[in-house]
C-alpha cells in the first residue's frame, strides 16, 4: 500500500474530478467523459507497450483506431444481399487476385537472387496485377455503390453482435501493424514516427474513399448496441421501479399525483441515458482491467525484462542472443492490436462510423501526450495520463472561460480584447496541451507516475 501510495492518490484525485463534473455539470456528461477516458486508457496502454516497454515510436495510432472502427461496421451491420449479388463475386475475385499477387511476389523474391532482372519481374507482376484488379473491380464497385446509395451502397457486414468486433478489430489492427512493421521497423526512431504517421494517413484515406467498403465519408449510422436503448428502458417495468426507488426522497415531497407523474417521467428519461452510459462504463472498465492485468503480468515476466533490456541497450540484448527484430515486430503488433480494440470500442459507444473524423494529425499527438504525461513504461501512469489529458481536453473550455473572466475582470463586457478571447475559447485547449507537455517534459520527464522497476 505504502509503495503504491502515489498511484492511489493520483487515481482518487482523477475520480474526484470526474465526480465533481457530475455535480457541477451533469451526470450524463461526467459518464461520457469517463467512457472516453476509458477508451483513451486502452489506447494509451497500446501506445505504452510500444513506447514504454520497447522504445518504439508509433504515430500510426489513428490508422489502427480507424481499422478497429471498420471492424465494428463489418461485424455488426447485416449484409446487403443486393450489393453482394451486384458485385460480390468480383470483389471476392479481387481478394484472391491480391493474395495471388502477394504470393507470387514472395515466390519470386525467395526463388531468385537479388538482381536487376528480378526487380523488373516483380514490377511487372505488380503492375499487371494492379491493371487486372482495376479492370475487375471498377464495374463491381460501380454497381455496388449504385444499390440504394442513400442508405446502403456498400457490401455490408456479417450481422453479428458488435462485441465480436472488439476482437476482430484487434486482429485487423494487428495485421496492419504486421505489414507496417515488416516495412518500417528497420528505420531509426524519428523516421519510424513519420513513416507510421504517413501510413496511417494512407489507411484512413482508403477507408474514406472506398465507398463500397464502409460507405466512406457518407458514414454508417445506427450500429447495433451491446447495451439496451434508452427508449426501450423507459417503458420497462423494472427500470421505472428502480428509478422510483432511487428518487423516493424527492418524489415523496410532491403530493399532487399528476405533477408527481410528470417529475417521474422526467427522471426516467434522464436516468435512462445515465443507465446506458453506466453499462458502457462497466463494459469498458472490464476491458481496461483485463488489459491492465495482462500487461502488468507481461511487464514483470522474463519477457518484459527482455523487452526493457532491448529498449535500454539493443546491441547488448542482441549480443545476449535475443532476437531484437522479432521482438520489436511482436510488440509492435501487440500494441497496435490493443489500439484496434479501442477503435472498435469507440465506434460501439458512438453507434456510428465516421471516417472523416479520424484525423491522424490531431489525435495521434494527443494520445502521445497522454502516454508521456502519465508516465511511459508504467501502465498505471499511462492510464492516468489517458484520463487526465482527455479530461483536460474536454473541460478546457469551461476552465479557460473561468480563467479569462478572472484575468479580464477589470475590463468591461464590450471590450474588444475580451470578446475576442471569449470567442477563441475552444483553442485554449491546444495551449493547455502544449504548455502541459512542455512543463512535464522539462520538470518531470518520466511522467506523473514514473516507471518503477522491481528488482527481484
Amino acid at each position, binding site marked *: 500500500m505504502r509503495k503504491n501510495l502515489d498511484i492511489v492518490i493520483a487515481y482518487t484525485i482523477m475520480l474526484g474530478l470526474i465526480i465533481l463534473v457530475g455535480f457541477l455539470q451533469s451526470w450524463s456528461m461526467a459518464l461520457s467523459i469517463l467512457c472516453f477516458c476509458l477508451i483513451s486508457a486502452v489506447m494509451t496502454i497500446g501506445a505504452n507497450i510500444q513506447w514504454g516497454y520497447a522504445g518504439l*515510436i508509433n504515430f500510426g495510432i489513428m490508422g489502427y483506431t480507424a481499422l478497429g472502427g471498420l471492424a465494428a461496421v463489418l461485424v455488426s451491420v447485416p449484409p446487403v444481399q443486393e450489393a453482394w449479388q451486384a458485385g460480390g463475386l468480383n470483389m471476392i475475385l479481387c481478394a484472391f487476385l491480391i493474395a495471388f499477387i502477394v504470393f507470387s511476389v514472395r515466390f519470386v523474391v525467395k526463388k531468385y537472387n537479388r538482381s536487376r532482372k528480378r526487380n523488373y519481374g516483380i514490377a511487372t507482376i505488380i503492375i499487371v496485377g494492379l491493371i487486372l484488379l482495376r479492370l475487375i473491380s471498377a464495374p463491381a464497385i460501380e454497381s455496388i455503390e449504385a444499390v440504394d446509395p442513400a442508405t446502403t451502397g456498400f457490401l455490408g457486414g456479417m450481422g453479428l453482435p458488435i462485441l465480436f468486433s472488439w476482437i476482430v478489430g484487434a486482429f485487423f489492427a494487428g495485421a496492419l501493424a504486421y505489414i507496417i512493421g515488416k*516495412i*518500417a521497423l*528497420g*528505420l*531509426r*526512431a*524519428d*523516421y519510424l*514516427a*513519420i*513513416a507510421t*504517421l*504517413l*501510413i496511417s*494517413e*494512407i489507411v484512413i*484515406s*482508403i477507408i*474514406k*474513399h472506398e465507398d463500397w467498403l464502409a460507405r466512406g465519408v457518407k458514414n454508417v449510422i445506427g450500429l447495433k448496441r451491446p447495451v439496451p436503448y434508452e427508449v426501450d428502458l423507459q417503458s420497462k417495468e423494472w427500470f421505472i421501479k428502480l428509478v422510483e426507488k432511487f428518487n423516493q426522497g424527492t418524489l415523496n415531497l410532491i403530493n399532487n399525483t399528476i405533477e408527481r407523474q410528470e417529475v417521474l417521467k422526467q427522471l426516467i428519461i434522464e436516468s435512462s441515458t445515465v443507465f446506458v452510459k453506466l453499462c458502457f462504463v462497466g463494459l469498458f472498465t472490464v476491458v481496461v482491467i483485463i488489459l491492465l492485468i495482462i500487461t502488468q503480468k507481461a511487464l514483470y515476466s522474463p519477457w518484459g525484462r527482455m523487452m526493457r533490456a532491448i529498449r535500454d541497450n539493443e546491441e547488448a540484448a542482441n549480443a545476449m542472443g535475443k532476437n531484437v527484430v522479432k521482438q520489436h515486430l511482436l510488440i509492435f503488433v501487440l500494441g497496435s492490436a490493443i489500439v484496434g480494440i479501442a477503435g472498435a470500442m469507440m465506434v460501439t459507444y458512438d453507434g456510428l462510423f465516421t471516417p472523416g473524423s479520424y484525423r491522424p*494529425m490531431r489525435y495521434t*499527438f494527443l494520445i*502521445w*501526450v497522454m502516454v*508521456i504525461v502519465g508516465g511511459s513504461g508504467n501502465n498505471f501512469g499511462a492510464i492516468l495520463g489517458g484520463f487526465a489529458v482527455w479530461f483536460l481536453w474536454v473541460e478546457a473550455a469551461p476552465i479557460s472561460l473561468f480563467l479569462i473572466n478572472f484575468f479580464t475582470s477589470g475590463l468591461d463586457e464590450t471590450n474588444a480584447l475580451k470578446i475576442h*478571447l471569449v*470567442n*477563441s475559447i475552444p*483553442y*485554449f*485547449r*491546444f*495551449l493547455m*496541451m*502544449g*504548455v502541459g*507537455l*512542455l512543463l512535464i*517534459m*522539462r520538470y518531470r*520527464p518520466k511522467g506523473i507516475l514514473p516507471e518503477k522497476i522491481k528488482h527481484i
Partner: protein
Amino acid sequence: MDFLNAIVLLLNYLFVPALSYGSQLALGAIFVSLIYGILRFAYFTAGDLMSFGTMFTILFTWYFQSLGINLGFLPTALLALPFGIIITILYVLIKDKLVFSYYRTQKSPPVMLAMVSIGTMFVTQAIVRIVIGPFDRRFFDGEKFIIKANEFKEMTGLNEGLAIKSTQAITLLVTVVVVSILFWFLNKTKTGKSMRAYSDNEDLALLSGIDPKKVVMITWIIAGILATIGGALYGLDKSFKPFTYFNNMLPIFAAAIVGGIGNPFGAFLGGYVIAFSEILLTYAYKKFFVYLLPESLEPEGLLQLLSTDYKFAVSFSILVIVLLFRPSGIFKGKVL
C-alpha cells in the same frame, strides 16, 4: 497543331501548378532538413511555424491596406513579408531559448527533442488560432493573372489556353532567389561552411573552434525566414487556413525524407518530386490523349491513374517506397 494543344494542356494543368506547389513544399522541406541536419531532430512544428509566419504577414498586410499602402499590381503581402519574417525569427529564437536550449545542454536523445517539438507545435497552433482564428482567409490583392487563358488562345490561335497566375510567377521567382542565396550562403561563406561542418561532424567542428551557439542561432533564423516565405507564398497562391498548414507538414516531411534528410539540396528537389508525382498520378489524361490519338483510338474512361482523393496518399506511398529501397533518400542525406 493537336500536338501543340496537348503540350499546352499539360503545361496548364500539370506543369505550372506542380512547379509552384513544389516550390512551396521545397522551401518548407529545406528548413526541416536543415534543422534535422544541425539540431538533429524531427521538427514537428514545421507546418505551424509556417502558419505563424503567414499569420503575421497577413496582419501586416491588413495594416498596410488600412493605411492605403499597396504595391500596385503586386500583392501587398510582399511588402508585409519582411515584417512577418522578423517576428517569426524572434519567435523561434525565444522558443529556442526557453525550450530547446535546455535539452541541447542535457544532450537529450533526438526522440525527446521531437516530442518537445510536438509541445511547441500545440502552443504555436493555439497562438495562431487565438490571434487570427481557424477560418479560411484570402489576402491576395493586385493583378491576378499574368497571362489569361483567353488572351493566350487569341495570341497563339490554339484551342487550349495557358493561364499563369501572378502568384505562381511570384512563387517561382522568390523561390529561385531565396534558394540561390541560401546555397551561396551555405557553400561560399565562412558561417555557411561552419554550419555544414557542424552538421557533418559535431565534435570535430567544436574542436576546430566553431561556435555552436552561433550555428544554432543561424539555423533558427534561416528556418524562420524560409517558413514565413514558404507559408506566405502558399497562402497567396491558395488560401490561408491553419489546419491546412498543419496538414502540409506531412508532404513537407515526405519531401525532406525523399530528398535525403539533412541535405538541403535534396530537400529542395524532394519538394518537386512530391508535388509532380502527386499531380501526375491523379491527373485525368483523357483530353491529352484525345488530342494526340486519332479519333478511332479515342479513350473511353478518364484515364486517371488514381482518383484525386488519394493525392496525399500518393506522396506518402512514394516516401514509403523510397524508405524501403534507399533509406538515406535519393540524394544521400545522413546515413541512418
